[in-house]
């Protein structure tokens, strides 16, 4: 692994922040304001792409910006894991930026400038988290994400909005103060540094570190990153669904929740390392623990008839797949888990985009009222169907790839319980997604819609929403067919650890 210094790293986090400022300044002119957010999104993605070749050739870009205490600094570092997350989030932001225009104007929402400012700032903070080179930097950006997304959650500023926002902030700050801070202090106490290690094997702790303390601090991190939606600290996510749908789509299906999952993966791989975790049996424990979330969240999703609520519980369940994969601690499992960051992102954002588009054009939130909607919104519901297949894990859509690798990982670990969990959860996924699609295409329309056949996707504003969601759905399918790029990105994380992977895949 080659280490190089690059001052360019901070640019990726700064572009969205500058975008936020420009949006704020041009708040009175909506067209300019929204173009800024599109331009910012494109530039952010471009800056990530610009850094990608170096990372893919095996370099780790790294730059320290401020030294705070010995071993505590603001350091940015880009490796495979960060690239995967940053690339996904920044690319989806471009599409979401267009979608926002359609949604926010379509509903004539209030305080749109505040919305765009916080939206851009949230993406910027997530970029910072993706590039974090040590625990402190990760914590810094993790907390900034919490702060700037609060105004988005309580956007409507009604009772429900405030209630959701309150829950959001209490869950996130309580867990981060109570668990994350203590965990960080314990790591600093044990290792004398907060810097991430290189590779995924060794971790940062010196030999002979007390086992019980390692276990306790690891559990603190597992619960501290509550953005990952692991039960029992998952309840903020369904409440956060009071936010406008673009927020639910980009932030509460991709950026925010993935910051949580990414952080846990990062801590597992770069702070504790595979050797330490498997030595203490923490990998297996984590895998079993998140299995509870996978199954329970899916069961709860079955009971929800509000489309966004159902999607929220589906997200909780799917996020735990990622942690499950990493917790398997073998190359196949980790690959399956990490590639699900991207795969789930593209599919889930499609689903949320669809839910939002349906709400804007028809005002419908409840699945039971969506009968026959597929005939009037064919593109939207088609994309929805495709993304649902990805969630269930049907080939050739991308979700299949993640689940395939996760399944291979559980088999490599010879753990039939976890394999059963994966299969059962796929059945449950089918159980709550198939009825939605079926209802949309073959169900009978509710009485007030009877006889209406004209398309709802004709107006230009609606196209702002439909085009992005068709693109994300198409990407979902493409990633299922050509997942090689992501495997390459993940494998540069630790070439030694993932060395066997290419052989295994070749053998299949």
């Amino acid at each position, binding site marked *: 692994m080659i280490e190089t210094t690059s001052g360019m790293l901070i640019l990726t986090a700064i572009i969205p922040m500058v975008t936020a400022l420009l949006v704020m300044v041009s708040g009175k002119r909506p067209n300019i304001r929204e173009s800024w957010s599109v331009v910012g999104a494109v530039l952010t993605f471009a800056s990530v792409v610009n850094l990608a070749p170096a990372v893919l050739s095996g370099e780790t870009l790294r730059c320290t910006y401020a030294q705070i*205490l010995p071993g505590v600094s*603001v350091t940015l570092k880009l490796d495979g894991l960060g690239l995967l997350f940053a690339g996904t989030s920044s690319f989806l932001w471009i599409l979401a930026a267009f979608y926002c225009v359609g949604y926010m104007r379509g509903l004539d929402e209030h305080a749109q400038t505040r919305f765009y400012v916080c939206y851009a700032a949230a993406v910027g903070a997530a970029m910072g988290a993706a590039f974090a080179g040590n625990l402190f930097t990760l914590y810094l950006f993790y*907390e900034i994400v919490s702060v700037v997304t609060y105004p988005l959650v309580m956007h409507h*500023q009604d009772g429900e909005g405030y209630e959701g926002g309150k829950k959001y902030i209490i869950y996130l700050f309580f867990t981060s*103060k109570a668990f994350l*801070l203590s965990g960080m202090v314990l790591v600093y106490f044990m290792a004398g540094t907060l810097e991430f290690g290189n590779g995924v094997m060794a971790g940062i702790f010196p030999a002979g570190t007390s086992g019980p303390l390692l276990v306790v601090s690891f559990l603190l991190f597992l619960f501290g990153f509550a953005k990952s939606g692991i039960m029992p600290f998952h309840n903020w996510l369904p409440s956060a669904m009071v936010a406008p749908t673009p927020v639910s789509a980009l932030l509460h299906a991709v950026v925010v929740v993935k910051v949580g999952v990414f952080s846990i993966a990062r801590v597992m791989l770069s702070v504790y390392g595979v050797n330490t975790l498997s030595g203490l049996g923490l990998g297996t424990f984590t895998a079993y623990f998140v299995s509870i979330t996978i199954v329970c969240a899916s069961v709860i999703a079955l009971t929800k008839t509000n489309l966004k609520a159902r999607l929220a519980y589906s997200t909780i369940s799917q996020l735990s797949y990622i942690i499950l994969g990493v917790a398997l601690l073998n190359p196949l499992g980790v690959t399956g888990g990490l590639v699900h960051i991207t795969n789930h992102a593209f599919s889930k954002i499609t689903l949320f985009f669809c839910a939002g588009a349906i709400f804007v054009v028809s005002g419908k939130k409840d699945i039971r009222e969506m009968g026959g909607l597929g005939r009037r919104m064919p593109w939207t519901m088609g994309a929805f169907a495709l993304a649902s297949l990805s969630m269930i894990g049907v080939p050739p859509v991308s979700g299949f790839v993640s689940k395939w690798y996760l399944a291979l990982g559980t088999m490599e670990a010879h753990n039939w319980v976890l394999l059963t969990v994966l299969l059962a959860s796929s059945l449950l996924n089918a159980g709550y997604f198939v009825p939605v699609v079926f209802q949309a295409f073959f169900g009978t329309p509710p009485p007030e819609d009877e006889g209406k056949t004209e398309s709802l996707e004709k107006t230009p504003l609606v196209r702002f929403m439909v085009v992005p969601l068709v693109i994300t759905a198409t990407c979902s399918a493409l990633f299922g067919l050509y997942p090689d790029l992501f495997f390459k990105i993940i494998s540069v994380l630790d070439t030694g650890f993932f060395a066997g992977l290419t052989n295994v895949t070749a053998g299949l």
Partner: protein
Amino acid sequence: MDTYLIANTLGYPILSTLLLLPIIGGLVTLFLKGEKMLKAWGLVVTTATAVLSLPLFNAFDRGTALYQFAEVSHWFPFLDLNYVVGVDGISVLFVLLTTFIMPLSVLCSWTYIKDRHKEFICVLLLMESAMIGVFVSLNLVLFFIFWEAMLVPMYLLIAVWGGKRSDYASIKFFLYTLLGSVFLLVSIIILYVKCGTFFIPALMEVVFPFSFQVWIFLAFTLAFAIKVPMFPLHTWLPAAHVEAPVAGSVILASILLKMGGYGFLRFCLPIAPAASLYFMPWLIGLSLVSIVAGGYLALGQSDIKKLIAYSSVGHMGFVTLGIFLLSTGGIQGAMIQMINHGIVTGALFILVGIIYERTHSREIEDNKSLGMLMPAYVAYLVIFSLASFGFPGTNSFVGEFLVLVAVFTHSKVAGIFAILGAILAAAYMLRLVQKMVWADSDGHGHHDDGGDHGHALWDLNMREFLTLSFLLVFVFWIGFNPKPLMQVMDTSITHLMEQVEEGHHQLKESHHVAPGHDLAALVNGH
């Protein structure tokens, strides 16, 4: 005496200048007329003092623990009552904090104070001299004179320019502090009788018998614990803060509370190291109680000023916790935390003053959902509130993190209580911000009365903006680059730790085993 001091080589007596300039400035106010003239004069004198204090930072020798910029003048040599001033790495930061907070307290009372301008400026300037005097004195009598001299202007600030219950608050403040001072005076006299000197560095070198150390330690600790204030001696603080005018609150929070922490570091630890070690578990316990109780009480307040006052109890609990962990990291953390508290809590009180000038109420209920009406104000409120509960990247995080690492190294159980305090800090600040910026979940988000509760609301003016921006710079400067600050104090803290190490030997020789009471066992985690 000279072995402890490094003479001032700046070409002018810097510490005496800092002491005398405000006093002279205060006397000149008696001959000035007109409100504008007086305020301008106050600003000029405090700013001049701040500028003149800058060499203390630049020319400070970071490689020695001796007292620098020292000046000696023999007043009554037969009594050992001399004018000796000098600063080391610990006190120099407090002198700078004082000189930089004072211009801001003049600025923040620009329109807040409506009457008796002459007296107000005069009192402020005298106060500044007394506070600088406390930090630079190296002679116990001199120290005590300044310590007492500080009491009167502060009493006047609360009593004359205070709110409705200012009589109650000012008397309570006066009595509590006076009670501490009595014990301080007694210990000073006993030390003199025993050693024949008032010179503080010399007293630090003397090895006192353990039983004597215990009494000296308790007397000093009582005085400083009231000042900090430490639970259960904190009740004067909320009263004083609520009634004090904005400048009074700022001075009280930013500087006066620091004198308790400074006293612990300057007197308790070096003069009675064995007793400090002996009482360490008790003081750690009390600090933890302060942290948790302060946070818990702050959570229930409906008055913004009271909320911040109780938050001070919690924050200063972190300071005393750091000090009495008696480890380098702990004391570093405590020092940074004191500077931070001066900056952040000062800013929060200025923010309360700003909103009080507009709505004439300090109740959270009357100052709700300001987000749309005062965006700049709200931006500052959010940033300083985040800084107050140790948001990463702000100054408080550095201090809190150092103290937390030290406390977890000492005992995991104590660490859990400290973390509980940190959670409470986040809870009450976020509750305050949520209500003031937006509104409660009871649906009062949108104003029906045109948005301003019938009061005229206007956003920050240039003066307020600059005052707050000045403090904001330090929030992030210390937050991202605390090194310059830590370099100033590190040598002195290392020296202090050597003195505390001596205490270990003294404790062993005195054949006193470590206290076996329940609290000690709990806090030590056995």
